[in-house]
Protein backbone atom coordinates (compact mmCIF):
# COMPACT_ATOMS: atom_id res chain seq x y z
CA UNK A 1 0.00 0.00 0.00
CA UNK A 2 1.34 3.41 -0.96
CA UNK A 3 2.29 5.87 1.76
CA UNK A 4 -0.18 8.70 2.10
CA UNK A 5 -0.45 11.95 3.97
CA UNK A 6 -3.57 13.48 5.40
CA UNK A 7 -4.17 17.03 4.21
CA UNK A 8 -6.69 19.33 5.83
CA UNK A 9 -7.65 22.38 3.80
CA UNK A 10 -8.42 24.92 6.52
CA UNK A 11 -10.31 27.20 4.13
CA UNK A 12 -12.86 24.53 3.27
CA UNK A 13 -12.52 21.93 6.00
CA UNK A 14 -11.95 19.29 3.34
CA UNK A 15 -9.78 16.34 4.41
CA UNK A 16 -7.89 14.40 1.74
CA UNK A 17 -5.59 11.41 1.73
CA UNK A 18 -2.88 12.03 -0.83
CA UNK A 19 -0.17 9.65 -2.00
CA UNK A 20 3.36 10.87 -1.33
CA UNK A 21 5.36 11.99 -4.34
CA UNK A 22 8.70 10.37 -5.14
CA UNK A 23 10.39 13.52 -3.84
CA UNK A 24 8.48 13.35 -0.56
CA UNK A 25 9.33 9.67 -0.14
CA UNK A 26 13.01 10.40 -0.72
CA UNK A 27 12.91 13.28 1.77
CA UNK A 28 11.17 11.06 4.29
CA UNK A 29 13.83 8.37 3.95
CA UNK A 30 16.58 10.96 4.33
CA UNK A 31 14.86 12.39 7.44
CA UNK A 32 14.55 8.92 8.98
CA UNK A 33 18.21 8.15 8.29
CA UNK A 34 19.37 11.48 9.72
CA UNK A 35 17.18 11.04 12.78
CA UNK A 36 18.51 7.53 13.43
CA UNK A 37 22.08 8.79 13.14
CA UNK A 38 21.40 11.74 15.44
CA UNK A 39 19.74 9.49 18.00
CA UNK A 40 22.66 7.04 17.92
CA UNK A 41 25.16 9.88 18.31
CA UNK A 42 23.26 11.39 21.24
CA UNK A 43 22.98 8.02 22.97
CA UNK A 44 26.66 7.27 22.38
CA UNK A 45 27.58 10.63 23.91
CA UNK A 46 25.38 9.94 26.92
CA UNK A 47 26.87 6.46 27.36
CA UNK A 48 30.40 7.87 27.15
CA UNK A 49 29.57 10.50 29.75
CA UNK A 50 28.07 7.88 32.07
CA UNK A 51 31.15 5.69 31.66
CA UNK A 52 33.45 8.62 32.47
CA UNK A 53 31.39 9.40 35.55
CA UNK A 54 31.49 5.78 36.73
CA UNK A 55 35.25 5.62 36.18
CA UNK A 56 35.79 8.80 38.20
CA UNK A 57 33.62 7.57 41.07
CA UNK A 58 35.56 4.32 41.06
CA UNK A 59 38.85 6.22 41.11
CA UNK A 60 37.63 8.28 44.06
CA UNK A 61 36.30 5.19 45.79
CA UNK A 62 32.88 6.68 46.49
CA UNK A 63 29.34 5.91 45.36
CA UNK A 64 27.10 8.15 43.28
CA UNK A 65 25.02 8.91 46.39
CA UNK A 66 28.15 9.94 48.30
CA UNK A 67 29.22 12.16 45.40
CA UNK A 68 25.78 13.80 45.42
CA UNK A 69 26.17 14.47 49.15
CA UNK A 70 29.51 16.13 48.55
CA UNK A 71 28.13 18.33 45.79
CA UNK A 72 24.88 19.15 47.58
Amino acid at each position, binding site marked *: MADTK*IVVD*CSTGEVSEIELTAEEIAQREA*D*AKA*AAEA*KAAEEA*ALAAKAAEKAALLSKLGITEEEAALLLG
Partner: protein
Amino acid sequence: MPNTYTLIASVTVGSGGAASIDFTSIPSTYTDLVVKLSGRANADVVAVICSINSSALDSGKRLRGDGSTVASASSAEAYGVNNSGATASTFSNAEWYFPNYAGSNYKSVSMDAVAENNGSAAYMSINAGLENTTSAISSLSFAPNGGNWVQYSTAVLYGIKNS
Protein backbone atom coordinates in the same frame (compact mmCIF):
# COMPACT_ATOMS: atom_id res chain seq x y z
CA MET B 1 -1.55 38.46 25.78
CA PRO B 2 -3.51 36.28 23.34
CA ASN B 3 -6.57 35.06 25.13
CA THR B 4 -9.00 33.46 22.71
CA TYR B 5 -8.75 29.97 21.27
CA THR B 6 -10.67 29.18 18.10
CA LEU B 7 -10.74 25.73 16.56
CA ILE B 8 -9.55 25.99 12.97
CA ALA B 9 -9.33 22.29 12.10
CA SER B 10 -9.07 18.86 13.66
CA VAL B 11 -8.22 15.55 12.05
CA THR B 12 -7.89 11.94 13.17
CA VAL B 13 -5.90 9.37 11.25
CA GLY B 14 -7.89 6.51 9.79
CA SER B 15 -7.17 2.79 9.65
CA GLY B 16 -4.60 3.08 6.87
CA GLY B 17 -2.26 5.32 8.88
CA ALA B 18 -0.59 8.42 7.49
CA ALA B 19 2.98 9.55 6.86
CA SER B 20 2.11 13.05 7.99
CA ILE B 21 -0.73 15.32 9.01
CA ASP B 22 -0.80 18.55 7.04
CA PHE B 23 -2.83 21.70 7.54
CA THR B 24 -3.03 23.89 4.42
CA SER B 25 -4.66 27.23 3.54
CA ILE B 26 -4.33 28.42 7.15
CA PRO B 27 -6.06 31.82 7.44
CA SER B 28 -3.91 34.80 8.48
CA THR B 29 -6.60 36.28 10.66
CA TYR B 30 -5.28 35.22 14.07
CA THR B 31 -2.40 36.40 16.23
CA ASP B 32 -0.85 33.05 17.09
CA LEU B 33 -1.36 29.39 16.22
CA VAL B 34 -1.31 26.32 18.43
CA VAL B 35 -1.24 22.69 17.36
CA LYS B 36 -1.93 19.90 19.80
CA LEU B 37 -1.12 16.40 18.71
CA SER B 38 -1.92 13.02 20.22
CA GLY B 39 0.12 10.55 18.22
CA ARG B 40 1.69 7.16 17.94
CA ALA B 41 4.08 5.99 15.24
CA ASN B 42 4.38 2.46 13.91
CA ALA B 43 8.20 2.45 13.78
CA ASP B 44 11.07 2.69 16.23
CA VAL B 45 11.19 6.47 16.20
CA VAL B 46 11.24 9.08 18.95
CA ALA B 47 10.66 12.48 17.40
CA VAL B 48 8.29 14.59 15.33
CA ILE B 49 9.38 16.73 12.41
CA CYS B 50 7.46 19.98 12.05
CA SER B 51 7.48 21.72 8.68
CA ILE B 52 6.35 25.27 7.96
CA ASN B 53 5.24 26.10 4.42
CA SER B 54 6.66 22.74 3.24
CA SER B 55 10.07 23.32 4.81
CA ALA B 56 11.35 21.52 7.90
CA LEU B 57 12.37 23.99 10.61
CA ASP B 58 15.74 25.54 9.79
CA SER B 59 17.18 25.41 13.30
CA GLY B 60 16.36 24.64 16.87
CA LYS B 61 17.56 23.79 20.35
CA ARG B 62 16.27 20.93 22.42
CA LEU B 63 16.43 19.82 26.03
CA ARG B 64 15.26 16.26 26.49
CA GLY B 65 15.15 13.61 29.16
CA ASP B 66 14.07 10.03 29.40
CA GLY B 67 13.57 9.57 33.12
CA SER B 68 17.19 8.77 33.89
CA THR B 69 19.35 10.96 31.69
CA VAL B 70 19.09 14.44 30.25
CA ALA B 71 20.75 15.95 27.21
CA SER B 72 20.60 19.03 25.05
CA ALA B 73 21.11 19.22 21.31
CA SER B 74 20.84 21.51 18.33
CA SER B 75 17.65 20.12 16.87
CA ALA B 76 14.13 21.31 16.18
CA GLU B 77 12.68 17.81 16.28
CA ALA B 78 10.33 17.34 19.21
CA TYR B 79 11.48 14.27 21.14
CA GLY B 80 8.60 12.39 22.71
CA VAL B 81 6.47 10.26 20.43
CA ASN B 82 5.06 6.90 21.33
CA ASN B 83 6.49 4.36 18.94
CA SER B 84 6.18 0.70 18.07
CA GLY B 85 7.93 -0.24 21.32
CA ALA B 86 5.61 1.72 23.62
CA THR B 87 2.86 0.15 25.67
CA ALA B 88 0.09 -0.98 23.33
CA SER B 89 -2.58 1.58 22.49
CA THR B 90 -0.86 4.43 24.30
CA PHE B 91 -0.35 7.78 22.60
CA SER B 92 2.07 10.64 23.20
CA ASN B 93 1.14 14.31 23.50
CA ALA B 94 2.83 17.31 21.99
CA GLU B 95 2.16 20.98 21.45
CA TRP B 96 3.62 23.58 19.09
CA TYR B 97 3.07 27.31 19.62
CA PHE B 98 3.61 29.72 16.73
CA PRO B 99 3.52 33.38 17.84
CA ASN B 100 2.93 36.16 15.28
CA TYR B 101 2.67 33.58 12.53
CA ALA B 102 1.26 36.01 9.99
CA GLY B 103 3.96 38.65 10.41
CA SER B 104 7.02 39.33 8.28
CA ASN B 105 9.69 38.34 10.82
CA TYR B 106 11.29 34.90 10.83
CA LYS B 107 8.92 32.39 12.42
CA SER B 108 9.75 31.11 15.88
CA VAL B 109 8.08 28.13 17.48
CA SER B 110 8.17 26.61 20.94
CA MET B 111 7.25 23.00 21.52
CA ASP B 112 6.92 20.39 24.19
CA ALA B 113 6.41 16.69 23.76
CA VAL B 114 6.01 13.79 26.15
CA ALA B 115 5.78 10.11 25.36
CA GLU B 116 3.69 7.88 27.59
CA ASN B 117 4.92 4.43 28.44
CA ASN B 118 3.14 3.38 31.62
CA GLY B 119 5.86 4.50 33.98
CA SER B 120 8.83 3.13 32.05
CA ALA B 121 11.51 5.31 30.54
CA ALA B 122 10.03 7.61 27.94
CA TYR B 123 11.31 10.59 26.04
CA MET B 124 10.13 14.10 26.79
CA SER B 125 11.44 17.37 25.48
CA ILE B 126 11.09 21.10 25.23
CA ASN B 127 12.33 22.84 22.12
CA ALA B 128 12.71 26.21 20.51
CA GLY B 129 12.79 26.36 16.72
CA LEU B 130 13.10 28.86 13.92
CA GLU B 131 12.06 28.91 10.30
CA ASN B 132 13.84 31.53 8.22
CA THR B 133 10.88 32.77 6.29
CA THR B 134 9.29 36.20 6.17
CA SER B 135 6.08 34.78 4.68
CA ALA B 136 3.03 34.16 6.77
CA ILE B 137 2.58 30.57 7.86
CA SER B 138 -0.02 29.12 5.54
CA SER B 139 0.72 25.42 5.96
CA LEU B 140 2.02 23.16 8.70
CA SER B 141 3.02 19.51 8.58
CA PHE B 142 3.74 17.05 11.37
CA ALA B 143 5.43 13.72 10.67
CA PRO B 144 7.13 11.09 12.81
CA ASN B 145 10.79 10.83 11.84
CA GLY B 146 10.13 7.38 10.42
CA GLY B 147 7.12 5.18 9.81
CA ASN B 148 3.54 6.41 9.88
CA TRP B 149 1.08 7.88 12.34
CA VAL B 150 -1.21 5.03 13.38
CA GLN B 151 -4.99 5.08 13.47
CA TYR B 152 -6.54 7.45 16.03
CA SER B 153 -3.56 9.79 16.05
CA THR B 154 -5.14 13.23 16.19
CA ALA B 155 -3.98 16.77 15.48
CA VAL B 156 -5.91 19.92 16.30
CA LEU B 157 -5.10 23.41 15.04
CA TYR B 158 -6.25 26.45 16.99
CA GLY B 159 -6.05 30.12 16.14
CA ILE B 160 -5.48 32.59 18.97
CA LYS B 161 -6.38 36.26 18.97
CA ASN B 162 -5.35 38.88 21.48
CA SER B 163 -8.76 40.48 21.56
